[in-house]
């Protein structure tokens, strides 16, 4: 039996209230909220967060696939940074899928039909011009699905695709604005493609539409998702999270699949339909193992209910739509490629060193023990899953940051280790001594086109 063995999702902390948009630009917006990736997040960092949750059950992937429509790098692979942050073995291949939404479902299909344990992560940051529907209705998210043969929670019992070339939306590489053609044209075309793939998938699974308890439809818009989903004849159409999260592009298929798994019962037939340059339908049957599976971190619904508001002006500055006066401080130098390569375990994997004799944890890793008595008597100590407490802190209103001020703390980790580290997903007046924190992989800044990835600490919430 081959199917899904684990999953994880990640919704960034901040929410934009769509009602704020029209107040400023005189148009756009709508009801509800959308998720907003932090200024220090990109699809790579969000994919790491979702993947960490998917791997909490102990999965050991033999292949890693990553999809986003907004890759941090062109030419160079993005999956390798996530691979390093997840501390996957260097014999595990890590590949980017092409920068389209359809690549994300392509990754799921490749993993479902492939062999070994395959981790598929998809993440996206959706934007658009101020006041556009894409800005208001888009959302930022990541999700990760592990396919394998052992301990399957949902077996793939059928799948089918319908591929078609037509222009419903497009974006030139390097641009931030996705343009859209006539909505009705897209809806009509996707309805036809969706029905075609749906019928073929049911046939390959050997079941009827009424056998499907729940279908999730990932589409460029809620309107299209509902129009197509309602015609499938399944027991229910899963909420597409548009009221709280938004349409999350390349993340949408895996995110809805995660949500589907969290709402399904054991022994049910469930389906994922993805409408992106065609239609792809995956039909699963959940197993008894699903019931005994604890959530991998917070569920999609729990995360969608959480978060904190972000003022629209801050959103626009984070996205570069408006340029805010930076502190009069020099911008940081670009990361040294050679130094970063030497320090890969620390920079990406957050692996400290542990003195074999005293047990003391050294952060960053050191060759000489803190008592000065031994050299090269350390072993690697992974710290990315450790929690700690703030022992002191500051707010730096002068230092350079893509979004000042910097909230910074000295953290003592439970079980040892101390590190001065930047805090994130926190307002300056929230920080206090004793506050429990956990680690999150972030992009500190970008210089010369090189994202500077490293870890930050965030308050433990929920």
């Amino acid at each position, binding site marked *: 039996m081959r199917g899904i063995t684990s999953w994880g999702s990640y919704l960034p902390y901040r929410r934009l209230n769509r009602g704020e948009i029209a107040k400023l630009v005189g148009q756009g917006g709508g009801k509800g909220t959308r998720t907003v990736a932090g200024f220090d997040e990109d699809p790579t960092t969000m994919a790491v967060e979702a993947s960490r949750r998917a791997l909490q059950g102990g999965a050991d992937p033999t292949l890693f696939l990553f999809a986003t429509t907004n890759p941090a790098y062109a030419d160079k692979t993005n999956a390798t940074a996530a691979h390093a942050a997840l501390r996957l073995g260097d014999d595990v291949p890590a590949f980017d899928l092409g920068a389209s939404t359809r690549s994300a479902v392509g990754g799921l299909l490749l993993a479902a039909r492939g062999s070994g344990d395959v981790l598929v992560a998809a993440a996206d940051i959706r934007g658009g011009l101020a006041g556009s529907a894409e800005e208001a209705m888009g959302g930022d998210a990541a999700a990760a699905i592990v396919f394998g043969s052992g301990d399957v929670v949902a077996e793939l019992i059928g799948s089918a695709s319908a591929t078609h070339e037509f222009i419903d939306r497009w974006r030139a590489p390097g641009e931030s604005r996705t343009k859209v053609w006539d909505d009705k044209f897209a809806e009509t075309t996707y309805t036809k493609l969706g029905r075609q793939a749906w019928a073929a998938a049911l046939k390959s699974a050997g079941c009827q539409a009424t056998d499907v308890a729940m279908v999730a439809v990932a589409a460029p818009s809620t309107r299209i998702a509902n129009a197509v989903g309602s015609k499938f004849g399944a027991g229910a159409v899963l909420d597409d999270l548009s009221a709280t999260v938004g349409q999350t592009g390349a993340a949408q298929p895996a995110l809805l699949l995660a949500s589907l798994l969290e709402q399904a019962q054991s022994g049910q037939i469930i389906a994922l339909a993805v409408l992106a340059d065609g239609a792809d339908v995956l039909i699963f049957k959940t197993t008894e193992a699903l019931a005994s599976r604890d959530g991998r971190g917070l569920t999609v619904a729990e995360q969608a209910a959480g978060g904190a508001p972000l003022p629209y002006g801050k959103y626009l500055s984070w996205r570069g739509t408006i340029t805010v006066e930076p502190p009069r401080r020099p911008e940081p130098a670009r*990361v040294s490629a050679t130094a970063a390569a*030497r320090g890969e375990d620390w920079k990406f994997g957050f692996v400290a060193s542990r003195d074999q004799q005293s047990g003391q944890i050294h952060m960053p890793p050191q060759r000489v023990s803190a008592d000065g008595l031994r050299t090269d008597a350390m072993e690697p100590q992974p710290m990315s899953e450790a929690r700690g407490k703030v*022992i002191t802190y500051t*707010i730096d209103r002068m230092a350079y940051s893509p979004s000042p001020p*910097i909230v910074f703390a000295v953290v003592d980790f439970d079980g040892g280790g101390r590190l001065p580290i930047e805090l994130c997903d926190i307002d300056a007046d929230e920080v206090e001594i004793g506050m429990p924190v956990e680690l999150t992989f972030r992009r500190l800044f970008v210089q010369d086109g090189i994202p500077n990835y490293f870890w930050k600490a965030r308050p433990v919430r929920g």
Partner: protein
Amino acid sequence: MASHGIKDRIAIIGMGCTNFTEHWDKSLDDLAVDAANQCFESAGMTKDDVDAYWLGTAQGGMSGVTLARPLQLQGKPVTRVENYCATGSEALRQACYAVASGAYDTAMALGVEKVKDSGFQGLNAHPVPNDGTGRTLTAAAMFSMVAPAYGNRYGVDKDTMRQAMARVAWKNHQNGAKNSRAQFRKAVSMETIINSPKMAGDLGIFDCAGVADGAAAAIICRAEDAQSTPTSPCS
């Protein structure tokens, strides 16, 4: 093995010091020349009478050439040292050790910093190529982290802590008011200090050091030679 120090073994026989201010019209070379010449005059010596030079500058230039060129030193050993905020003290310390060791009869220590040419606020270290994982805080922010931890550890409430820290700037500004070379020459009230805009953590503008250009120099000789120098304070 122990640290013995050089107490009573050397004497300072001349000093020079520029004003500490935003010297928009003076370069690093100007400041170094002004401080050095004042110092030579104060000691009644010429640059050729000084056997060796130590330059302390954190961000003003690389190597002893930064001092040798403006002073047009010929055939003199010139060493540049850097030790963050202790850079000037370090130059003095090295010059004193050199004389105390017997290697030289006289030495000059000169500290100079020209920080207002950057256009940035605060002090900015030269970036050393790195992996991007180091802290990027200002010095003020790093120091400010002591306060919450101290208050928490010793049960000092925030207001008391704020009052106690403000005493430092209050005392320093009173001293500055009496010093013609000081950057700030006005006493400042506790209230003004406490209510000043915050820079980092609970540290306000008055708690953080002003950023100024300036230079100072000292000429050192062995203690037993001090009385025979041209302008000996002992004679």
